[in-house]
């Protein structure tokens, strides 16, 4: 399996723990589905934990961007947690690093939603 996704609640924040590869196909589809479902269910505060994500391609970046905009359009906020060096580099190269609110520590990220 290319990607594994689990969700949990910390207060009113929905934390999405992602591990594996977010690439075109199963990985990007799973990301699209979970973010669409969470938004449809009315979740307004979503923290995407990418600390166990080993690889993202341009399709995966596309899903992050689409998720970011669709959550925002629904009146919510999507933030990122725990980027690996390679994922961080990728977001910097594509000038998306400053678009997202990125955190290194979960507790700090959770507090930032308040």
């Amino acid at each position, binding site marked *: 399996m290319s990607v594994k996704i689990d969700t949990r609640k910390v207060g009113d924040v929905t934390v999405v723990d992602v591990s594996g590869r977010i*690439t*075109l*196909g199963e990985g990007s589809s799973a990301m699209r589905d979970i973010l669409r479902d969470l938004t449809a269910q009315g979740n307004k505060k979503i923290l995407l934990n990418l600390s166990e994500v080993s690889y993202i*391609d*341009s*399709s995966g*970046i*596309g*899903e992050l*961007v*689409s998720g*970011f*905009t669709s959550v925002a359009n629904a009146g919510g906020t999507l933030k990122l947690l725990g980027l690996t060096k*390679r994922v961080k580099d*990728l977001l910097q*190269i*594509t*000038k*998306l690093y400053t*678009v997202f609110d990125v955190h290194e520590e979960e507790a700090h990220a959770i507090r930032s939603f308040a």
Partner: protein
Amino acid sequence: MYLIQLTAKSDIVDTGAKELLDHKYPSTLDSVDLAETEILKAAGDAGFDEDEQHRIGMAVRECMVNAVVHGNRYNRNKQVHVSVGTAEGRFTIRIVDEGEGFEDSDVPDPLHENNLLRHSGRGLFLMRAFMDEVSVRKLSPSGTEVTLVKNVARSE
């Protein structure tokens, strides 16, 4: 066959040239994974370190996705021709699809503020970010040839 074509195009007589891969893949996402895996092995054999292998792998993945998805449009009657060789310190990957072809200039700049939040359109940009040279050639009557080059000496 690939190295003969390369030599003919550039008029270089290179006695140190080595062919590492020459394969035609069906137009499926499995081919993307397979080509990435095989080229990563070739890059490792060529002496690239782990970080450079990762960059080469990402460029290959983006290029293969373009060929399979946008070029051949998953048409199982069309193939993606991948060849890899080294010559004069250059690790050269050539990926050719059988699609309608596209011009490099047709691809919008993904870093432009109007395009920053677009869902797609970053593949070619990432290839350029991760490789030393990238060239795109629209073939006649159809198809696109993308050549990716990484200088071997750079990782030494």
